[in-house]
């Protein structure tokens, strides 16, 4: 078995045969002859430009007429980009002043914008680079005088093809034959790119970011693509995966139909139990995405990443400004701020440890106890941020403070003593009282002592990645895939079930914020085990919310009971993968 891990961009689990296909991006034809006189080259550009605009408008009308709204909107957006005044000015300059050929002018001009967009730090805007690349490829195709031969692997592939490409252009998705293409695996790409949006609307599973290695597999090799949890598996173990024809159609049925909808309120199970689905956030820009994807607040703010670019430790003012900004962005939705979680593979760029200190071997709260000023400063900044937002009555911030890597109950007592001291120094008992203290359950000892820990705080939050790693003595940095598989192992599920029982008895919320939370296939299982809140990467929230709405808690508990009785991960995967309600669409 050989598994490639990437980022799921369009859900669905399908079996097929690999077909490596070069993208139009790599097929850019170059012109044989030296440039003709500028006015001739410019006429060629104008002709290709007019032709492409006409094609786009025609496509928009056709797509609109048959109700393909996402396609039509994209065609219109591309029309707008292609009509851009600076594009034409720059190409005109390239041809007339730099004496370039039409092809070279198109390459250079579109290329400059591709580079500009690629360099943007906001992924939503950076993803537009691919739209510019797409238009460049279409312009170049129109400039080529020789007609391309008709055989288009995207339109006429063998049945049950899993397309493997470096990247995918929106115009290529529009050419895809969905009857024959079971799924798409990309070495690069982004779940926010238009190609991914189109793939979702067409119900074609898509995984991106699989890495260049995926381009070197054998054509025709059988493989399993999982668009929900973002993997491509070759030579899948027979017992792990459904391989007969009947389950292949079942895999087909798992495909979503229609565009994913963003739900801007707390999703409820079918019988009406609310399940908050929150966002894992690492940067200020990501905090802006929470509302966009319908997140019910932030379930995990990784503050060590928020200030990762700082050369020195962030001051109280810098921290409180950032926290206040995020609290305001959330407009009253809950926000779980995790104390700095350094140690292990996450070394602080600005934490100065004395020579010979064993900081690398200490992690989470134990490291904070060694450097208590980190925790004091952070909590002081948090209190000030809460004070700043309290002036606006509509912003009643719900703040949780997550303590990382708790191993023992008394550590929570120690943290509380520290925080009470800071609150006293700040003379702000009111803000301090509004902070709910929560323990991160990432070490098996804390899971086993959960009852005592729950008695000392307001909430338990499972970090499933670390918990699985420590439960199996795994090496997370080396064996990401194995750690992930372990997160669904019955041993791990039994540990979560224990936490579910403890939390229910203590009437204490139980959140889960590891990678598992972003996999909609695992959602019913986690709810059945007693998890009451989920926190996932922002882009995964709509899918997870859709999954929550498809079940009753009773159905989830039945599924969980079956999974708890399983002997290995494969049986659990079969159990959740076989369930046809697990992805959007179906027969609702």
């Amino acid at each position, binding site marked *: 078995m050989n598994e490639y891990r990437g980022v799921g961009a369009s859900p669905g689990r399908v079996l097929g045969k690999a077909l490596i296909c070069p993208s139009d991006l790599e097929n850019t034809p170059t012109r044989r002859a030296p440039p003709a006189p500028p006015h001739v080259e410019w006429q060629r550009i104008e002709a290709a430009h007019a032709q492409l605009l006409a094609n786009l408008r025609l496509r928009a009308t056709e797509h609109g007429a048959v109700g393909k709204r996402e396609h039509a909107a994209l065609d219109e957006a591309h029309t707008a*980009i292609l009509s*851009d005044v600076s594009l034409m000015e*720059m190409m005109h300059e390239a041809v007339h002043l730099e004496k370039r050929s039409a092809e070279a002018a198109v390459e250079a001009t579109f290329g400059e914008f591709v580079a500009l967009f690629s360099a943007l*730090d*906001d992924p*939503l805007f950076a993803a537009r680079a691919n739209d*510019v690349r797409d238009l460049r490829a279409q312009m170049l195709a129109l400039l080529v005088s020789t007609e391309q031969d008709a055989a288009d692997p995207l339109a006429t592939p063998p049945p049950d093809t899993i397309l493997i490409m470096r990247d995918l252009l929106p115009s290529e998705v529009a050419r895809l034959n969905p009857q024959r293409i079971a799924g798409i695996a990309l070495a690069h790409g982004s779940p926010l790119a238009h190609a991914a949006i189109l793939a979702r609307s067409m119900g074609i599973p898509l995984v991106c970011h699989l890495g260049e290695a995926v381009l070197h597999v054998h054509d025709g090799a059988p493989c399993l693509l999982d668009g929900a949890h973002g993997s491509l598996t070759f030579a899948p173990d027979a017992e792990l995966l459904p391989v007969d024809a009947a389950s292949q159609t079942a895999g087909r049925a798992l495909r979503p139909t229609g565009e994913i909808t963003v739900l801007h309120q707390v999703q409820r199970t079918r019988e009406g139990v609310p399940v908050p689905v929150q966002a894992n956030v690492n940067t200020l820009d990501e905090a*802006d995405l929470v509302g966009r994807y319908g997140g019910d607040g932030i379930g995990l703010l990784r503050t060590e990443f928020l200030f990762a670019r700082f050369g020195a430790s962030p001051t109280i003012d810098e921290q409180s400004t950032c926290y206040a900004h995020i609290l305001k962005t959330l407009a009253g939705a809950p926000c779980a701020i995790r104390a700095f979680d350094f140690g292990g593979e996450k070394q602080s760029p600005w934490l100065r440890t004395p020579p010979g200190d064993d900081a690398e071997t200490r992690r989470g709260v134990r490291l904070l106890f060694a450097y208590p000023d980190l925790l004091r400063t952070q909590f002081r900044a948090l209190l000030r941020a809460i004070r700043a937002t309290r002036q606006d009555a509509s912003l009643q911030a719900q703040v949780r403070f997550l303590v990382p890597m708790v191993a023992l109950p008394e550590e929570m007592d120690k943290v509380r003593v520290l925080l009470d001291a800071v609150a006293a120094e700040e003379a702000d008992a009111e803000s301090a009282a509004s902070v709910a203290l929560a323990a991160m359950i990432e070490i098996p000892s804390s899971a086993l002592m959960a009852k005592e820990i729950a008695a000392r705080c307001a909430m338990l939050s499972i970090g499933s990645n670390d918990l699985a790693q420590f439960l199996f003595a795994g090496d997370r940095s080396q064996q990401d895939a194995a750690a992930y598989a372990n997160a669904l192992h019955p041993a791990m599920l039994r540990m979560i079930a224990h936490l579910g029982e403890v939390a229910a008895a203590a009437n204490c919320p139980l959140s889960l914020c590891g990678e598992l939370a972003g996999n909609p296939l695992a959602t019913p299982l986690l709810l059945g085990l007693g998890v009451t809140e989920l926190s996932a990467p922002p882009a995964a929230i709509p899918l997870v919310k859709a999954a929550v709405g498809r079940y009753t808690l009773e159905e989830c508990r039945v599924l969980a009971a079956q999974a708890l009785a399983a002997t290995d991960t494969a049986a659990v995967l079969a159990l959740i993968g076989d369930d046809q309600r697990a992805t959007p669409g179906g027969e609702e």
Partner: protein
Amino acid sequence: MTTSDGSAAAPVERVVRVAHPQGLHLRTSNQIVQAAARFVSDIRAGNLSRPSPLVNVKSILQLMQLQAHAGHLLRLTAVGVDAQEAINALALLIDPQSSTSPQRSENPHSSEMHNP
């Protein structure tokens, strides 16, 4: 708007908050560019809420370089005979709540994004 000697009026400047929940993404940007194209004035924008270039509002590719999200503050500057009308129209498009009172500036930005 021309002065008595016929030369172009001083630059008209205005700070507007992005109201659209999606920010200035493709569709919103396109509306703004379409509106800007109706004026002869030169219209530039910069994003005050994050580091960004000063861009030509008549170019959608440049406008998206602002990476403007809902709540960001944009500074619009127009120079030309219909600068005031242009600024009023664009401000209203970017934030329908914005009032129509103009702000004048004698010191427009000197650095600008000519060709990216």
